[in-house]
């Protein structure tokens, strides 16, 4: 394991020598922090799951979720360890009667889409906080409807899904 060396602010005061040893330690400190070395700062979970909306696919479900009757069904639900803005793509169509898709964060609807009679693509940038649950609910009339190709994208950052909820944990 790499050693972590504490650096006082005064090491970087104006006029102080720029030391090779301190530069080397600064480099090693990053590695030591990543390795969880003794004395190194503990990495906060917020730092682990930062994401921004982009074009890098991080989740894709190629299934088509279809019903031919009236129902309210959650077709996707996931909690995330992290925070930021996530891009949500999906396609949907209704049967002969009306059908909607609701986008929910922590059970609260933030977008409602009225589906059309043939498959159309929908995109939303969703803001999530640490531990938020993103859900997609299909709400159909008597003749049902379909949702497919659910996709989550970031600007290259990784998504860290987890289950079980925050419960009594305070991760903030």
């Amino acid at each position, binding site marked *: 394991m790499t*050693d972590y060396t504490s650096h006082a602010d005064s*090491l970087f005061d104006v*006029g102080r020598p720029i030391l090779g*040893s301190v530069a080397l330690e600064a480099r090693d400190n990053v590695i030591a922090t990543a390795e969880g070395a003794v004395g190194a700062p503990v990495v906060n979970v917020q730092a682990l799951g930062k994401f921004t909306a982009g074009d890098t696919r991080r989740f894709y479900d190629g299934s088509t979720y279809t019903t031919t009757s009236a129902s309210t069904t959650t077709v996707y639900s996931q909690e995330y360890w992290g925070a930021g803005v996530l891009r949500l793509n999906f396609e949907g169509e209704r049967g002969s009667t009306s059908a909607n898709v609701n986008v929910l964060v922590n059970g609260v609807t933030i977008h409602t889409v009225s589906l059309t009679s043939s498959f159309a693509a929908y995109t939303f940038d969703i803001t999530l906080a640490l531990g938020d649950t993103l859900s997609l609910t299909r709400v159909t009339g008597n003749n049902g409807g379909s949702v497919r190709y659910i996709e989550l994208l970031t600007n290259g950052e990784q998504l860290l899904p987890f289950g079980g909820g925050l419960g009594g944990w305070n991760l903030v």
Partner: protein
Amino acid sequence: MTGPTAIGKAPITIVELEQPRCINRFGTSPCTATGTPKCYNTGATCADLPNFTPTGSIKWRFMDGRPGAFDYSDMSDPDNQELPPIPCAVSVSTSEGQINAGANLDGRSALGVTSKVTITLQDFPWNDQWGDFYAADRTGYVAGRPNPTRANFWALWTARNALFNDMILTVYDGYEGQAITAMRKRVYVLDKVNGPNGSGGVTLTGLDPLRLADEKKAEFPRTSDLEIYGDTNDTTTIVQVFGLEADLTADFGNTGSDRWLVAGNELIKYTGYTDEGDGIYTLTGVVRGDLGTTKESHDDRDKLQRAGRYVDEQFWRVASDWLLSHTEIPSAFVPVTDWDAEGNEYLPTYRTTRTVIDPTPVKDLIAELSQQGLFYIWWSEYDREIKMLAVRPPDTEPQTFTDAANLLRGSVLTREPDSRLTQVAVYYDQIDVFGGAEDTANYKRRFTSIDGDNLGDTRAKSIFAPWITNRTQAVQLAVRLLIRYRAVPEFLQVTIDAKDREAVLGTVLDIETRTIVDSEGNANARRWQVISSKELRAGHTYVLRCQTYEYFGRFGRFAPEDAPDFSAATDEQKAVGAWYAGDDGLMDDGSEGYQYQ
């Protein structure tokens, strides 16, 4: 004619022996001495040792027998008398000290070579005309007449001073007409007084105070007078010991009340003890098999040794603790404040943790600690203190010495190809304190630095570094050693006049001499460090032996946030800041880039 730059200067050498003396007066409270003869306020003549208080002093001064009156005395304080110099054919000879910065010079201690002064003088009849508080009470005293001569001075002095503890030899190098306070001083610790011999010659030997860290004079931890009391199994925390209480309480390191005993191959930690009487003590706060060692059974009277231990301590502070607390070096010779300033500036993050289980000469410990901690110490006889410097670039522009202005004839360049290195491996993070210090298997980690540009044969050096637990320190040690010794180390001996005598041991100089030229025959100014210095002709000429100094170039310091771009910076700003160089290592104006220190 006074001063080293004066034409026709007449050098003068005065030797001073400072001897501690008791400030009490014979038979006067608190002194309870009675009878005759009365004392000479020295330990050897004291008749009331419990009240012996040697906080006063007398400074005996000696010089050659030149004509003239030289009144350098100050008798105003009877308890601290400074006597006028006694003419007695003094001559002074010194063996110079030597720095071994980086600790790689073959055949030399990592600590360098300590210096010595030998003073010969002629004995002379002595009648105690100075320095005797009770002259009027002595046999043969007649008021109004000179004191009777009792014997020769050194015969009397050695009879009155059995031990030479805390005696200081000072050599004043000056010029006739100079006040003694303006003369240059060299200070040594008195080691021996030999003679007088058949022809009346006496020799005083003074040592560089670092000799007080030698193997016969100082150990860390000191040898303990402690034994296990009663058979003790390997699990019990009821541990009794027999021996000297002082050996249980002494501090060996920076761990406060946490102390350790070495018992076989086990380290037993304790934090206190209960006195059971008759030299028997029951330890408290006992932890068996501490610091990763294995618990063992011990028999009655098995030997115990206190271990020394430092935890997360700065390297140079460990060294200063040894000098101040575990040698007899006077504390005035160790300028801790200066050491701290140097260490905090250039070695701010260098810390060490180690347990020392065997009594080891302090000199040996300092040698390995200074090598591994990238600093070096030496006795600066003119500044009268033990200097400490990090292995680093000079912080001021060195003075330039040239053939025309400074160097007398006779510069000699030598090389030590055997000291060249192409590979340095540092073994660090020792596994078992009871394992071999030079066993590669006893170290968890190793860093190897290799000179990739080497065109010659391979010359590898392995350093076993039990004081290092941190990779950065291992890297710095290996790389700096390799930088300094990847080229064949060169040594330049030059002779200088007294006007340049400020160049002393440790000084860094830029030297331009016809002895050193480039491939086209042009003078090639190079940077050197004075690693030894010797007076060739008292007060006139000095010989400096210098070693190539690798720190040549431009070294960076943090600049303020509002510093201008390099191209707009003033020369002064460029001298105290730093800017990134281009990929070619050069600045925009083609000058050399900045380097890490």
